[in-house]
C-alpha cells in the first residue's frame, strides 16, 4: 500500500537529513562563522574543565548531545522544494502539500537543534508530526456506535463503480465481528443486479437485509429498514445507495430526499484511492451538496501514490474511516493515522 509515496518520502528523508548534516558540519569547519548557526564550544576550553568536575555521563552529554545548531530556512530550502515536488507527484493535493511543508519549516527552521544524536531521527520525527497533522485523527466507528443511541443509521454515498456495495458488506462483517447486530438496507434500486449483489453478500456474512424490487423508491426501502431496525432492536443500519455523480442534479436531489426520510446519523462517502486527486475533488463536492461525516477509500492496496489517503481528511475536513485493501470481507482496515505514517516512514 502506497509504495511509491513511501519511496519518495524515504528519498526526501535522506535529502533533508543530508542538508541538516551539512549545516551541522559547517561550524566545525569554520569556528568563527557568525549568527546562523551557534558553534559548539571549542574542545580545548571545555575538556579540562570537565575533567575536573564532571562525571563520565555528563562528559558524554556535553560532547555528543549538547552541541546544537540553529537550522536556517536557506539550509533546507532545496530539500523542502524537492519534498514539495515529490508530494505533488504522489497526487497529494496542493493545500495539503503546503500544510506539510509549512509544518516542517515551523518545526525545523530557527530552532536550536541538538545534533549529537541522530539527524535522521530528527527528520523522521518532523515528517511524522507533519503527516499526522494532515491525516487528522481518523474515525473510530465502533466507539461511535457504542456512544450513540441505537439503531445507528449509516448512509453510504459515492460515485459509480467505486465498490460501495462491497464496502457496505465488508463493514457489516466487521461490525458483526465486533458484536453488533447489523441490518443492511438495499437502497441501490437503480443499478441492475445491485439488489441481488447485496443480497448475496448479506447471505454470506449472515446479516439481515431489507429490500424492495428494482426501480423502487430508495427512500421507501431505507425507511422500512429503519422501522425494522427499531422494532427488532438492531444496533446498526448500513444503507447502500446507487452510485451517482455530483453533477447529476436529479440523482443528488434523490439523495437529499433519502437523507430527509432516513435521517442518518452518519453519511459516509466512498471512493477509490486509485482515483487520486479526483477522489479528493469529488469528496469535496459531495460534502458541499449532501454532506459527509466520514470517508472510506477502497482499492488502497492498488494505490501506489497514496495522494488521496493523505489529502482527503485535510482537504474536506472530514476523517477517513476505513481503507479497503482487497477482495475478501476481511480486507478492510479501520484507518489509523499512526499506522499509515509508520508504514510510510518504514523503519523509523
Amino acid at each position, binding site marked *: 500500500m502506497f509504495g511509491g509515496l513511501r519511496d519518495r518520502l524515504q528519498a526526501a528523508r535522506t535529502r533533508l537529513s543530508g542538508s541538516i548534516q551539512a549545516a551541522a558540519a559547517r561550524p566545525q569547519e569554520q569556528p568563527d562563522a557568525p549568527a546562523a548557526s551557534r558553534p559548539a564550544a571549542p574542545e580545548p576550553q571545555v575538556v579540562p574543565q570537565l575533567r575536573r568536575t564532571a562525571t563520565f555521563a555528563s562528559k558524554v552529554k556535553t560532547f555528543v548531545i549538547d552541541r546544537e545548531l540553529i537550522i536556517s530556512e536557506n539550509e533546507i530550502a532545496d530539500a523542502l522544494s524537492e519534498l514539495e515536488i515529490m508530494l505533488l507527484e504522489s497526487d*497529494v493535493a496542493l493545500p495539503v502539500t503546503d500544510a506539510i511543508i509549512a509544518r516542517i519549516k515551523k518545526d525545523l527552521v530557527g530552532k536550536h537543534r541538538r545534533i549529537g544524536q541522530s539527524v535522521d531521527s530528527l527528520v523522521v520525527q518532523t515528517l511524522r508530526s507533519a503527516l499526522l497533522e494532515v491525516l487528522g485523527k481518523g474515525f473510530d466507528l465502533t466507539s461511535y456506535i457504542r456512544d450513540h443511541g441505537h439503531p445507528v443509521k449509516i448512509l453510504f454515498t459515492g460515485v459509480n463503480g467505486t465498490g460501495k456495495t462491497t464496502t457496505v458488506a465488508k463493514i457489516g462483517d466487521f461490525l458483526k465481528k465486533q458484536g453488533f447486530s447489523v441490518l443492511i438496507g438495499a437502497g441501490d434500486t437503480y443499478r441492475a443486479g445491485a439488489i441481488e449483489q447485496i443480497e448475496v453478500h448479506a447471505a454470506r456474512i449472515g446479516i439481515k437485509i431489507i429490500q424492495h424490487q428494482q426501480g423502487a423508491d430508495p427512500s421507501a426501502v431505507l425507511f422500512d429498514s429503519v422501522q425494522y431496525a427499531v422494532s427488532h432492536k438492531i444496533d446498526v443500519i448500513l444503507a447502500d445507495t446507487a452510485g451517482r455523480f455530483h453533477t447529476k442534479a436529479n440523482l443528488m436531489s434523490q439523495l437529499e430526499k433519502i437523507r430527509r426520510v432516513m435521517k442518518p446519523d452518519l453519511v459516509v462517502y466512498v471512493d477509490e484511492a486509485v482515483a487520486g486527486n479526483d477522489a479528493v475533488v469529488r469528496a469535496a463536492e459531495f460534502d458541499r451538496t449532501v454532506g459527509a461525516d466520514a470517508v472510506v477509500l477502497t482499492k488502497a*492496496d*492498488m494505490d501506489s501514490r497514496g495522494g488521496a489517503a493523505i489529502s482527503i481528511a485535510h482537504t474536506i475536513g472530514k476523517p477517513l474511516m476505513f481503507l479497503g485493501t482487497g477482495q475478501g470481507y476481511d480486507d478492510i482496515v479501520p484507518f489509523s493515522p499512526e499506522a499509515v505514517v509508520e508504514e510510510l516512514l518504514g523503519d523509523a
Partner: protein
Amino acid sequence: MDQRELLTLEHYLKQYGQQAEIFASQLELMENGRMEALAAVEALQGISEADDNTVLLQIGGGASLRVRVLEPDKVLLNIGAEVIVERTNKDAVEFLKDRVIEMEASEKKVVETLDRLRSQMNEINKRLEQGYQQAVQAGRAAPAGSGDQDE
C-alpha cells in the same frame, strides 16, 4: 445440490462477473494512460531531435499541420494533484518514463486481482456444471422411480 444452492452459485458468478468488469475497465483506463505517456515520451524525444524544431501536428480527421515548436526545451507538465510545472525536455521524458513504470506496477496488481476473480469464476462454473448435471440425472431417475411405484 438443490435448486437454492444452484441459484446462490449463479448469484456468486454474476457478482464476480460484475467485479471483473469493473477491474477490466480500470485496467483499460490505466493502459490508455500508459500508452498516452509513452506517446508523449516519443513525441518529446522526436521534438528534441527534429531539425528546425518542426513537427507534424495531427489535428484530427486525418489532417496534420507542420508546426514549429517555439520552446522545445520547455515542457509544461502535469506532475500530479493538477499542478503543472515547467520542466526541460529531458526531465519531462524522465518523469513520464517513471510514471509509466508506476502504472505498469499498478496494472500488474489489477491483472493479479482479475486473474484471481477469473479463477474463482471458473471454480463456480465447474460447480454449477456439476449441479446442473446432477439435476438432469435426478430428473431422469424420478419418472422411472414413480413408474415402478405405479406398477
